[in-house]
Structures are given as C-alpha cells and as structure tokens.
C-alpha cells in the first residue's frame, strides 16, 4: 500500500463525530423536544408492539361501552367497549410499521437513483428525470390514494403506496449535492487513484450526502405518518380490526356529540408524533449543518 493510498483510506474512516452530533442536537430547543416527544411516542408504540397495552385493543367489552375517562380507562372507551388508550397505542404501532417500511423503501431507492443519476451522465439522468417528473405531476395524497386502492389492501401495500410517492423527493434531494460533489477535488483524486466507481459512490459520495438523507428521512417519517393517517381516515389505510389513528379519528368524529373523549387520545398521539418528528428533523438539520459549527 502506498503512502498516498493510506492517506486516502484514513479519510474514508468516519471521524468519531456521533457524540458531538448528539450534544449539538440536545443543545438546541427543537432538537431536545423532538427527541423527547419522539421517544415518548415510540415508547408507546413499542409497548403496544410487544402486547403491553392496558387492555386488548381489539376485543370488545359491551358492558363497558362509551365510558368516559376514569381510573380504569384513562382515555375512556369507544362504542364497542374497547379501551381508547390501548387502541391509540396499537395505532401508533401500526403507523410506525407503515411509516418505517415506507421511508426505508423510498430512502434506499430514491437515494440510489439520485446518486446514480447525479454521478453518471445523461444516459441515467434522462429516464430517472422523466420518471420523477411523472410522479411529481400528481399531488402526493392523490397518488397514494390511487396506489393504496390497488390490489389487496394490507399494511404493506399501504406502505408501498406511500413509498412510491416519496421516492422522487429523495431523488431530487440527493442528486443536487452529488452533481456538485462529483467535481470536488477529493472525488477527482479518488478517480485518479483508480478506485472503482462502486467504491467512490459508497465510501466517498454516500457519507458526504448522509446528513441530507438523515434529515430527509426524519421529515419523510412525519409525512408518512400523516399520509397513512389520512388514508386510514378515508377508509383506505390498514384495514380493520387493526387499530389505526386515522380511522379512530373518523369514528370519533361521529361520536363526538355524545362521547367527545373518543377523539382526544388518537388526536393527541398523532399530533405529538408529527410534531416530534418535525422538531427532530429541524434539530438534526441544524446539528448536521457545518455552517452552525461555531454556534455550539
């Protein structure tokens, strides 16, 4: 190994900056609140995922129907006697499942297309551009709606529908920085050293656009949760009896005159979830922006 190559390999190692990032994130108000809110909602969802809800979110208890908030039922029960808190927790788990899978699919595919179309010339860029233009010609919710009603509906098809809508956003967000990075000296140097494209793409380019991808992932999570909820509100989300936050709000809307508490828990959890993710995204953006280095 030549000394030159050793120097470049040293550059490839990620600096121990994770700790610094965390400190900077927690130093900003939005970052701190984002972490707290997201952690609380994630905690509720994870508890539901392992079955640790106060009551079974699906089984019906007709004797206890339409009960107001009490010590036994913190947020009351619905028209079938199901505990609203347990159902909201299970709803969080459902949206998490949909949102995480949707964002992973769109982030991986979108970033890959974005990097490839930025790095390789017009032969890749042309078709990718045309495809993103087509997907961008739909208002996002409309496209998700149309896609979600295709095929047998379950949580996975809903996730794929949302993923397809967000792929072009990842393409656009990652392509621009790749276009300018392509001309950067360290990439040129890597080329001169004869590194294969694969290695340049994954070890030199990808780490440099990671901050952008991370921020986009966080913000997309909040959109995905929102879209999943809107779909389930319209009756096109994860099908019943699985609790979903959107369909809970829909049911509560018709009950609100006699049982206003039915809307409180699902609405509150949904807002906390989205506010938390948005704040976390903002906090991460500031923490990852090298221009803010001096502030912390």
């Amino acid at each position, binding site marked *: 190994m030549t000394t030159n190559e050793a120097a470049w390999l040293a550059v490839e190692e990620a600096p121990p900056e994770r700790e610094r990032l965390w400190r900077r994130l927690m130093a900003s108000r939005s970052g701190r609140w984002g972490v707290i809110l997201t952690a609380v909602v994630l905690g509720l969802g994870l508890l539901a995922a392992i079955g640790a809800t106060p009551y079974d979110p699906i089984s019906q208890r007709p004797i206890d129907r339409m009960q107001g908030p009490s010590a036994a039922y913190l947020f009351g029960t619905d028209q079938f006697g199901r505990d609203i808190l347990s159902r909201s927790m299970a709803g969080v788990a459902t949206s998490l499942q949909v949102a995480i899978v949707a964002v992973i699919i769109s982030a991986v595919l979108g970033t890959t297309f974005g990097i490839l179309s930025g790095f390789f010339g017009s032969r890749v860029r042309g078709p990718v551009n045309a495809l993103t233009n087509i997907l961008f010609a*739909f208002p996002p919710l409309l496209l998700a*709606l149309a896609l979600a009603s295709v095929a047998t509906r379950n949580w996975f098809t809903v996730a794929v529908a949302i993923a397809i809508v967000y792929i072009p956003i990842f393409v656009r967000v990652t392509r621009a920085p790749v276009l300018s990075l392509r001309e950067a000296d360290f990439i040129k140097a890597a080329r001169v050293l004869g590194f294969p494209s694969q290695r340049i793409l994954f070890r030199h380019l990808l780490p440099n656009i990671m901050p952008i991808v991370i921020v986009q992932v966080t913000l997309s999570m909040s959109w995905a949760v929102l879209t999943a909820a809107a779909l389930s509100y319209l009756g096109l989300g994860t099908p019943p009896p699985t609790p979903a936050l959107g369909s809970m709000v829909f049911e509560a809307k018709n009950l609100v005159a006699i049982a206003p508490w039915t809307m409180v828990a699902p609405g509150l959890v949904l807002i906390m979830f989205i506010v938390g993710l948005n704040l976390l995204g903002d906090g991460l953006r500031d923490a990852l922006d090298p221009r803010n280095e001096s502030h912390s």
Partner: protein
Amino acid sequence: MITSKRIARTVAEATVTLLGVAVLVFVMLRVLPGDQITASLGIEAGMMTEAQLDALRAYYGIDQPLVVQFLGWLTEVASGNLGFSQRTGQSVLEMTASSLPVTLELAILATLLGVLLGVPLGMLSASRPNSRRDGGAQLIGLAALSIPSFLLGALLLTLLARILRYNPNAMGFARPLEDLGLNLQQMMLPAIVLGFALAAPIMRTTRSAILEVKSQDFVRTAIGKGVSPLRVQVRHVLHNSLVPIVTMTGIQFGYLLGGAVVVEQIFSVPGIGRQFLIGMQQKEYAVVQSTVLVIALLFLIVNLLTDLLYRIIDPRVRTG
C-alpha cells in the same frame, strides 16, 4: 426574454409527462381486483354464465387487449371525450365542468388565507431571529405543519355544530351564483383548514428568504441612505425575497387542486378531489382515469405559470 424555443421544449416535456401519467393511471387501474362488471352488478355478477359475462365485457370494451384499450381511450380523450360515468350516465366532462370551479374557488380562498397568514408570520419571525417573537411565530408554523387537516377539519366541524349549532355544510351545496352568502359560509371552514396547513411552508420559506436577503449589502446601503424602515422592509427586502415565496405558493396551490380530497370529503364540498374519490370507490375506470389526467394537467399548467410569474418578478431569471 422567454424564447419560443424554450416554450416549445417546456410544452414537449409537459406532453411526455402527461403521457406518462396516462400510462401509469391506466396500468394501475387494470391491476385493481374486480372489474367494471363486478363493480356495477355486485354479487349478481357471480350468478351470470360465462357467455353473459363475455357479452358484458365486449359491451364495456374490456375484452380488448390492453394496448388497444389504452389507445382507444387516448384517442377519445384527445377528441374531447373524457368518458361517461356508468352509474349516473353523466359525462366526465360535465362532471368536471361542475366540480372543477368548486375546487378552484376553494384553492384560491385557501391560498389567499395561507399567504395572508404565512407571509406576515414569516416576516415577523425574520425581523428578529431567535427572539421570543420568532419562537412564537415558529410555534404557529409548527402547529400548521403538524396538525393533520382531517383532524383540524373534524374538530372544527363537530365543535361548531355542537356548541354553536352552526353547520352550513350540512345543507345542500350552494353555488356562488345561486347563493353567494351560503356558498362563502360553506367554503369558509374548508378554506381555513387548508389555508392553515398552507401557511406553514409559506411562513418557513418567507422567513429563510428574508433572512438571506436582509444580510446583503444593498439592504445595508438602503438603511444607510436613510430610507424609512418600512420602505426597506417592503420595497427592498420583501421584493427581493419574492421568488422563493411565489414558487412555494405556486407549488402548494397546485397540490390543492387534487390534494384537497380529504378536506372536500369532510366538508362535503363537491370538488374534483371528491369526484376522484367517489370514482375510486365505485371503480369507475373512466371517471378516475380522466379525473386524474385533468388534475395532472392542471398541476403542470400551474407549475408552468409559476415559472412564468417569477420571470416577471425577477428580471435576472429572464436572461439567466
């Protein structure tokens, strides 16, 4: 200036995109389980003989190869025939002629509210960054970004109906020419819900654009020359921040044309989003296909107009 070559290229690009949209929608609908026959006859379709089903398929034209069906549809659309609804017998062109103005009215009102709320909020928070004022404005922006419109809509609707017994949307929809007063009352709540959501991106864009412009030399020069603060704010800072604000507003307006589905549904506003949703639920191929095509076309036109608009606002873009 905008050259004719540029316009030709933009139109060509838009045509390719529209064609892609058409293909995508067509393919998507054909993957749907169940066809028009089961959708219109329901369970009875199962009691028919194979020969009867074949006859119906031939009648609806869905026995043809997909490519033939697609080209047939495209030729019809090009000649202005958007198809008919199986259920009501109404042509999609008629349906769209009745639903599109409703959505346009709603989108214009919502955008107006969004700009009226978002731009001043953005200016307010940019006037003293990181102050309490900035924090408050950003908090409102965060709420606008995070409260789902279906939740806000459902809350407003039920609260007003319950406490004030006020629910103009429960009455039949009034067109502005029939009863402008009732029409505006019916449009108010959905426009507020959509406008509130719209204010968030507009506010954020305004804030960052103004912060960017404010730090530039020509603003300092203007202040140094003794230009009044209000004039500096409006004539120098806001004017030069308009391009991103107009772009963001244009994009959001475009989204509203099809993306107001949920709010139209909640408030029973018979707009184009609802036309799409009902078509989707009843598997009316013709209605859904043509509605989506119309929405995509509008979206492209709005984006094109936005593009033109900021060329007018910012002379530098014209030559650039």
